[in-house]
């Protein structure tokens, strides 16, 4: 009986320690969210979403260009990053049990470890210098490269999770292999892959460093892909290092919007994953 009491005391102690650790880990996240929300709310207004950046002192300044720019850049990133990433993932899962597959897997892992600013410099030397100017296109390429390894490895993992019995079922019906992969394997893995894509987009939406060399920034309204384009992270950076109170407020508001976007993407991804579990 005594031993039992001792055991349950240790159990309670360990549980308390774990709860404390969780709370401790949540402190930075919660305080960050609270701080950004508190600071950002005052800067939010209709003009934030409709107006263009204005010189200090003029009323109704906003960053409609940066909000749009971030959406365009993320869209471009998906365009460049998703198709090759998904296809590479399929290759690795279905045909990649060889030396070439190993090499691709290894390079993807290395690429996902490369600091994003290095990707920025790479695209700068490759595209920006060649095109003689910053452009949204270059920004999209940089973000796409950052997405690529994540998309590849998630797709691979999820395609691998599709049971072989489904592949066999399709093949035994006289379906050619490529069709079995596209219509059965991919279809079965689709919700999971979509979740992975949303997480990759969430990660890339807040990237600042690679955009500094590529999409740069733009004070004006522009959706011309060959021209510099504003984005929320870069705009936050620009405003935050300025000495003006009004710009600081707008930077906080932009930070809030960006965090909300990323959170919404994450929550959406999780919801999708959740809904797929019960049938």
């Amino acid at each position, binding site marked *: 009986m005594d031993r039992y009491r001792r055991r349950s005391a240790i159990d309670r102690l360990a549980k308390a320690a774990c709860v404390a650790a969780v709370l401790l880990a949540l402190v930075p996240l919660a305080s960050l969210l609270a701080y950004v929300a508190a600071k950002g709310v005052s800067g939010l207004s209709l003009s934030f979403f409709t107006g263009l950046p204005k010189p200090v002192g003029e009323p109704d300044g906003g960053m409609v260009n940066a909000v749009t720019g971030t959406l365009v850049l993320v869209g471009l990133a998906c365009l460049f990053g998703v198709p090759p990433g998904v296809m590479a993932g399929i290759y690795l899962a279905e045909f990649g049990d060889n030396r070439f597959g190993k090499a691709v897997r290894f390079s993807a892992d290395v690429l996902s470890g490369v600091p994003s600013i290095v990707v920025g410099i790479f695209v700068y030397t490759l595209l920006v210098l060649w095109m003689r100017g910053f452009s949204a296109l270059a920004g999209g390429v940089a973000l796409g490269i950052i997405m690529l390894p994540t998309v590849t490895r998630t797709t691979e993992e999820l395609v691998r999770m599709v049971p072989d*019995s489904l592949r066999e079922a399709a093949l035994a*019906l006289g379906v050619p292999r490529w069709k079995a992969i596209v219509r059965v394997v991919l279809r*079965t893995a689709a919700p999971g892959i979509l979740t992975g894509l949303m997480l990759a987009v969430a990660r890339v939406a807040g990237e600042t460093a690679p955009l500094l060399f590529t999409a740069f920034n733009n004070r004006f309204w522009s959706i011309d892909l060959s021209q510099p384009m504003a984005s929320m992270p870069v705009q936050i950076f620009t405003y935050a290092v300025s000495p003006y109170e009004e710009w600081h407020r707008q930077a906080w508001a932009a930070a809030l919007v960006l965090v909300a976007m990323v959170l919404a993407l994450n929550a959406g991804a999780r919801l999708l994953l959740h809904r797929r579990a019960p049938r």
Partner: protein
Amino acid sequence: MMFLGGPRREDPAQGREAAPRSAPAQAVEKLRAEGLKAWFGATLALKGISLGMKERRVTAIIGPSGCGKSTFLRCLNRMHEVAAGARAEGRVLLDGVDIYGRGVDPVQVRRRVGMVFQKPNPFPTMSIRDNVLAGAKLNGVRLREEDALFEKALRRAALWEEVKDVLARSGASLSGGQQQRLCSARALALDPEVLLMDEPCSALDPIATARVEELIHELAERLTIVIVTHNMQQAARVSHYTAFLYLGELVEYDETDVLFTKPQNPRTEEYITGRFG
């Protein structure tokens, strides 16, 4: 169909009374393996098997685990080579034409020789209806009279009455036995000439097993069936002919009645009387 719902017979000699009537001898060979060898990597799993399977008859393949019976079955519609490192050698004649011959497309072979697997494997993302039509739909075949086709397939698989009101539900929502009959319907919708069944009842309870065995019996009126089973009573109940495989070799083949009552080879006798395996 007295052999269906009755209690499991433990003695294969007794089961014989329940077996289908002895098959007429004039049945033609639909499928014939000649010197069939199969490898997994460097391991020889089938050591040269020659065996004919008669048209509109049920041929059972029995033998202890690892004897190569599933491998043999999978060689009959070129599914063996799908696994990594697997290959086969020898000839398999379908209506006299070697399916391993040069220029033969395995995809076409599989449309004529359908397969039902050990574990039911309906497509979880598809409705019951789409599962049945999957063979045609995945192959991009435009279907006229779609409704008639899948109703016919489901009826042949003895599943229609149970699912006709829930055709839009997921194929994974059915019970195990229903899933197995759904997989049969899916194979039957392609109107195959041969149906290969790889231990189709091993994951099913006795009632579901009886339904599938009934199904096998009915299907044999129209097509050639090869069934792998580790259940000797089942082999005795459903098949006209039985082949006993051991360690990758064909030990004995005969009419089911004969093999279970007067086995020629001592190994066969030991196996069917339960002394090993």
